[in-house]
């Protein structure tokens, strides 16, 4: 089948992607590129991956018909419950896949970057599961903001190393992880947390996350008698949960895809993370994609109340979906997202992660038909964001 949205042999989605990496990383990235598809296709890999997703992660996650939301918005809203995964978000689908990949490549030392700490926790979790050494790079600023996740990683046996350069957030943690990889080229595997970085990472991560859309198809067939929804909605920082939720529908243009970005205080406020609006094509973390930068090509610091969407770039697949108009990109402010988070909590009894809450705001921004099937990827739960919710809504009063 001719595909328009799959990665090509050079690692590009349209004009986005590739591997813009220093020579020091070439052998590692090349090794992965040469082997990832072969390894993923091995029956023993598939068996182990699926078994862990089932027994350890708790998959399949439910596709839940949200009755009250559906009534309010006069359409059929389904929630893909990734918040019910072990560790509380979709992130673990990818870390399970990558740790199995690392083992098959004979790597003994795992590194990762993390912003809010969700990917760090998911990585530390699978390292504990496999008994591998785990080092997580985290911006010094984020370490202070996300103390509970730092504690979780430590309990799981990981070493958390502060990134003290630049703005001391996710982008700098990623730089530090890449430097560690350069310095330890033989025994170390870098588990990237999103569909970002040099090829083949965006494709590999999307494939591991594609279990989300595979399940949506099966579950919709059972519940609605058809595999395809009319809409799939997901939030996008780097874009891994969206990539997973969109994956099986990419080539079928009857399924409309909506990617929700964080507008922060407003797209034009100077405090935003809406990369598709504010970004220009450039190179970030080894990938040619849309990124927020100055005229002079210096990468700028984004802002969002949600640490998971606070990334100055976006995965190359999403840049391509934007460029080709395959997906509609909608920017949602802090305020709108926080209100949605509260609404979902009260109406469905589910406290979503603030990242995920952004996706729900689309229900207020867009009119759907009563017969439309709208699947929202509920990518993570809100436990980690409780402090932010408490402060924002003065809940401690």
């Amino acid at each position, binding site marked *: 089948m001719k595909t328009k949205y799959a990665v090509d042999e050079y690692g590009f989605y349209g004009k986005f992607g590739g591997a813009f990496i*220093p020579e020091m990383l070439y052998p590692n990235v090349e090794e992965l590129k040469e082997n990832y598809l072969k390894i993923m296709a091995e029956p023993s890999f598939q068996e182990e991956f699926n078994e862990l997703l089932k027994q350890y992660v708790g998959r399949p996650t439910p596709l839940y018909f949200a009755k009250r939301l559906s009534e309010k918005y006069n359409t059929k809203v389904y929630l893909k419950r990734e918040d019910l995964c072990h560790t509380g978000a979709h992130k673990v689908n990818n870390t399970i896949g990558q740790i199995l990949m690392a083992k098959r490549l004979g790597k003994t030392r795992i590194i990762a970057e993390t912003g809010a700490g969700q990917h760090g926790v998911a990585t530390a979790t699978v390292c504990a599961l496999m008994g591998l050494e785990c080092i997580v790079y985290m911006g010094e600023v984020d370490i202070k903001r996300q103390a509970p996740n730092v504690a979780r990683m430590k309990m799981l046996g990981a070493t958390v190393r502060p990134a003290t350069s630049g703005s001391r957030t996710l982008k700098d943690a990623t730089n530090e992880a890449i430097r560690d990889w350069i310095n330890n080229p*033989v025994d170390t595997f870098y588990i990237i947390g999103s569909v970002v970085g040099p090829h083949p990472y965006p494709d590999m991560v999307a494939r591991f996350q594609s279990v989300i859309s595979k399940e949506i198809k099966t579950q919709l067939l059972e519940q609605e008698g058809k595999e395809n929804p009319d809409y799939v909605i997901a939030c996008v920082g780097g874009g891994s949960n969206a990539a997973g939720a969109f994956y099986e529908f990419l080539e079928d243009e009857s399924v409309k895809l909506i990617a929700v970005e964080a507008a922060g205080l407003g797209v034009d406020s100077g405090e935003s993370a809406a990369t598709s609006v504010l970004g220009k094509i450039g*190179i970030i973390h080894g990938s040619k994609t849309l990124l927020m930068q100055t005229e*002079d*090509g210096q990468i700028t610091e984004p802002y969002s109340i949600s640490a998971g969407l606070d990334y100055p770039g976006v995965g190359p697949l999403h840049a391509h979906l934007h460029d080709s108009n395959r997906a509609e990109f909608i920017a949602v402010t802090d305020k709108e997202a926080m209100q949605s988070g509260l609404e979902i909590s009260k109406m469905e009894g589910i406290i979503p992660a603030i990242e995920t809450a952004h996706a729900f705001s689309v229900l207020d921004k867009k009119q759907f038909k009563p017969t439309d099937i709208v699947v929202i990827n509920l990518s993570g739960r809100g436990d980690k964001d409780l402090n932010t919710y408490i402060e924002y809504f003065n809940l401690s009063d």
Partner: protein
Amino acid sequence: MNRINNKLQEDKKILSIYFTAGYPKLDDTVSIIKELEQNGVDMIEIGLPFSDPLADGPTIQESSTQAIENGMTTSLLFEQLANIRESVKIPLLIMGYFNPMMQFGMEEFCQKCAAIGIDGLIIPDLPLYVYENEYKTLFEKYGLKNIFLITPQTSNERITEIDTISNSFIYMVSSAAVTGSQSGFGNEQIDYFKRIADLNLKNQQIVGFGIKDEETFNQATKYQKGAIIGSAFIKYLAKNPVNMIKEFISLIKK
């Protein structure tokens, strides 16, 4: 002939110095270049600062951050260097990451380099195949040498490929590491220097990463044509004024 290639033909070991343009002070660029030439440095890599220099360690990253804060930009660097060839004769290269060059426009960037008298570019995150397919013709049109890196992990097959496409020197990364992270060379690195020398490549090699004093310079140039000092020089500049550069160079090349 290109100044780099002329220099490579001289019967001597080459000392190349890297510094970040706009550091420590915005206007230091030209005076640093002049001081380096006057004190016997053979070649200079002018660092175009980038916010996220992946292949560099903390020293060069901090100098880049400072330079950007000082107000350094690509256009300003070209302005500062506009008349550099009135006085400076040694080869000058620009080392920088691909994104700022891409935003400036690669053709315009090369054009400016040629007009100023820049001899070559080192762009660590511009992959070989992208260079070949998209930029090789451009570099050749403007007489710029593109310098590729190899590391101890680079396969012989790829070294051959890099040697074929290069036509000045190969930047030999001394060990698998970011800049500024080693302390002296061990047997493993010496073996690697020797192994590469024994390949009899058509391009000579200049060693970078981990060179910081006379000892490491001599070790690195025993089998190779020259060596590049970066982080150690940046650290020196952080503590000493530009007119003291003489001291630094004299400790390396006696």
